[in-house]
């Protein structure tokens, strides 16, 4: 903060209270101060890290945000686990992801939260810094989980400040969904989706001459920002510098990526003013030919009878391959007072599901474990294994604490304004980088205070 404001800081809490104005409040605050023991490190020590559970019968609350077609798959796994492990009863509770990350911290703080849960890799830092979750290095150690068992990018996404906070379950990259009927109508081979920039652009112009808007571009995070992030990495750029202290997404790569998207709108390959989810609805209705969306949509599209579609890796528009991906991770909550039995049982549960991630892959995910990803059973899942080809060049948002807030306050807005043709791509990104740097600075102060 600026020097000029030090005078305000000069008025101390005690002086303020002495003024009398806050005297009553002070008593009140003292009354509810304290808080949980903020030393979550290694409370589970003494256990074997989750190989077996021999303690008394426990009930585990397991929360996640699988509200879509993925929910039933997870529920089935949970039921199977509970029937095989008589003294661990897992109760699953589903909350929408948007609410999940606001509900879970307060629930854990009040002692009414879950024992075990799922978090996205880019949320691990925030929740680790806020003591919502505990380190799981011993789980990884005891279960013999090593980097070589996992795709290294996914494995490293579970790390924060030198500790492991998440056991990766899967990765869920973006993919290119294509409508075969529309491709036929435009005279394209429906079994040969465009995979390079040239192919993509010529396919779009074929579509255009057939009167079809080939790729609807959303101005919202889902799916507009995800497209832009993928393109940014393809053009050789990145969101932040190596230690996430400065935003770098207004580089030439970032501008080129955003310009490419905006040109789709300007050249009539996308309608203007696409509202939230309209591009997704239009794909299902046979109006949007090439739709970039997450792997988790596979089952949703399978349920639509008249939709003739396929899925391919995201085309390489830029100089290198690159695609946005998220990753679900198992976490153990810092529920005070931590019950050693529950922590141990949670570890057993995590290990069990992690080994059966082939069943989870059917929900529309790529298993994090190499052994599962390379199994014959996974290869037989046509759509999932096609998108798994991208696993070596996926990019994740770094797990820095508060990183989500930086995105909301900066490049989400820039993509929105540029795609809605309210600002030029470069101007929008330059402005957003300024905001992002400020927010990164504030996060550093906040989470190191």
């Amino acid at each position, binding site marked *: 903060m600026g020097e000029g404001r030090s005078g305000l800081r000069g008025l101390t809490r005690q002086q303020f209270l002495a003024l009398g104005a806050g005297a009553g*409040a002070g008593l*009140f*605050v003292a009354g509810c101060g304290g808080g949980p023991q903020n030393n979550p490190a290694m409370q589970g020590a003494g256990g074997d890290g989750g190989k077996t559970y021999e303690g008394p019968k426990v009930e585990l609350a397991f929360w996640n945000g699988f509200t879509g077609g993925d929910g039933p798959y997870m529920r089935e796994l949970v039921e199977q686990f509970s029937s095989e492990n008589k003294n661990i009863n897992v109760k699953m509770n589903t909350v929408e992801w948007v609410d999940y990350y606001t509900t879970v911290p307060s629930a854990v703080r009040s002692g009414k939260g879950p024992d075990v849960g799922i978090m996205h890799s880019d949320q691990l830092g925030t929740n680790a810094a806020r003591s919502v979750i505990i380190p799981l290095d011993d789980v990884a150690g005891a279960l013999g989980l090593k980097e070589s068992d996992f795709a290294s990018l996914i494995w490293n996404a579970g790390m924060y400040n030198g500790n492991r906070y998440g056991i990766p379950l899967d990765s869920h990259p973006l993919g290119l969904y294509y409508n075969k009927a529309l491709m036929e109508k435009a005279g394209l081979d429906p079994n040969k989706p465009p995979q390079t920039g040239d192919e993509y652009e010529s396919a779009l112009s074929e579509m255009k001459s057939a009167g079809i808007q080939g790729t609807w571009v959303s101005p919202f995070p889902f799916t507009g920002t995800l497209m832009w992030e993928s393109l940014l990495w393809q053009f050789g750029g990145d969101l932040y510098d190596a230690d996430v202290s400065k935003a770098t997404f207004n580089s030439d790569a970032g501008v080129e990526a955003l310009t490419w998207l905006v040109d789709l709108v300007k050249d009539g390959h996308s309608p203007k*003013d*696409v509202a939230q989810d*309209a591009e997704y*609805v239009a794909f299902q209705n046979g109006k949007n030919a090439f739709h970039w969306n997450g792997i988790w949509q596979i089952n949703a599209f399978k349920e639509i009878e008249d939709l003739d579609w396929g899925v391919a890796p995201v085309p390489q528009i830029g100089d290198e391959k690159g695609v946005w991906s998220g990753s679900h991770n198992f976490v153990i909550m810092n529920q005070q007072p931590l019950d050693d039995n529950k922590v141990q049982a949670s570890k057993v549960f995590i290990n069990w599901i992690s080994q059966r991630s082939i069943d989870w892959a059917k929900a529309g995910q790529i298993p994090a474990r190499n052994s599962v990803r390379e199994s014959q059973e996974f290869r037989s899942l046509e759509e999932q294994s096609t998108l798994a080809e991208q696993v070596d060049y996926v990019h994740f948002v770094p797990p820095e604490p508060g990183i989500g807030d930086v995105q909301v306050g900066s490049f989400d807005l820039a993509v929105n304004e540029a795609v809605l043709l309210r600002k030029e791509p470069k101007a929008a990104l330059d402005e957003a980088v300024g905001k992002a740097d400020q927010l990164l600075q504030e996060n550093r102060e906040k*989470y190191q205070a």
Partner: protein
Amino acid sequence: MTTQQVGQPGAAPSAAAKKAPRRQESKDFIGASPWTPYLFMAPYLVLFVVFVVIPVVYGLWISLHSWDYLLPGKPWVGLENYVNLFTPGSTTSGPFWKSMEATGKYTLFSVPLLVVIPLLVALVLNQQFRGRTFFRGVFFAPYVLSIAVVGILWRFLLDPNVGLINYYLGQLGIGTIPWITALPWAWISLVGVTVWWTLGFNAVIYLAGLQDIPRDLYEAAAVDGANAWQRFLNITIPGLWPVLLFVVSITILREANMFGQSYIITQGAPGEETTTAIIYIAETGLRQFNMGAAAAMAYVLAFFLLLISIANFAFFRQRGD
């Protein structure tokens, strides 16, 4: 804490002032312990203290810190959260004042419509005609829906490219209108949806007020040769004055606290244009866990609402006496 409640103390003095002369008599009437009235008020007072007074004071305390309830350190920052709001270029001042502007615009657009249209509806529904009760129900019906239902319903109807409304307009040869993604259409949609959704509530209050105006006044005026417009100006409006004050006040406070419509229908877009103050405050406090800054913003918003409420009461008292 809600800003509505902060606004209310403005109402208390005027009500108390009017009742003052009667207090003398009531003392004699009860004749029992002087604590009796307080005992009767106790249940409300307890709720008021627990849910209003304590949160208001506690919120003020929070606003003087960099406050994340889960971080071990909650450093004291004095007035910094407030100063940031008034320092151009800080992370909070830009978006906050933009959201205040959005709230102001929205309130300005929606309140006149929500004061006038329900009054017209109430005047019609106050007439004698067949099916009157049915139509009263029809106008009130949307109000029973939650904002989640209303928001999702209208988001689908208003979608520029795959929505029903533009589809039918297209059949009529009218091109794509960006109902929820560009200005001024986004405001037109948000105000329109809100009027559709809440006009029934204001209309019912007006209707109750209209039914309180003695019939014989109208009859006497008609005998004296007053036409319908004159009767409306000289009997209906003065008779409705306290109701009007109530409707204007709660409508301003309700619309200034608008959240759901923008949050669901436009997601605050285009850019941050329809991000209202409450959305931004909730975003800052509950999603970014920046409670201190959010609390400071809530007090600034509450202060503005207090000023508006005071001005509102002053206007109605002056014109009413």
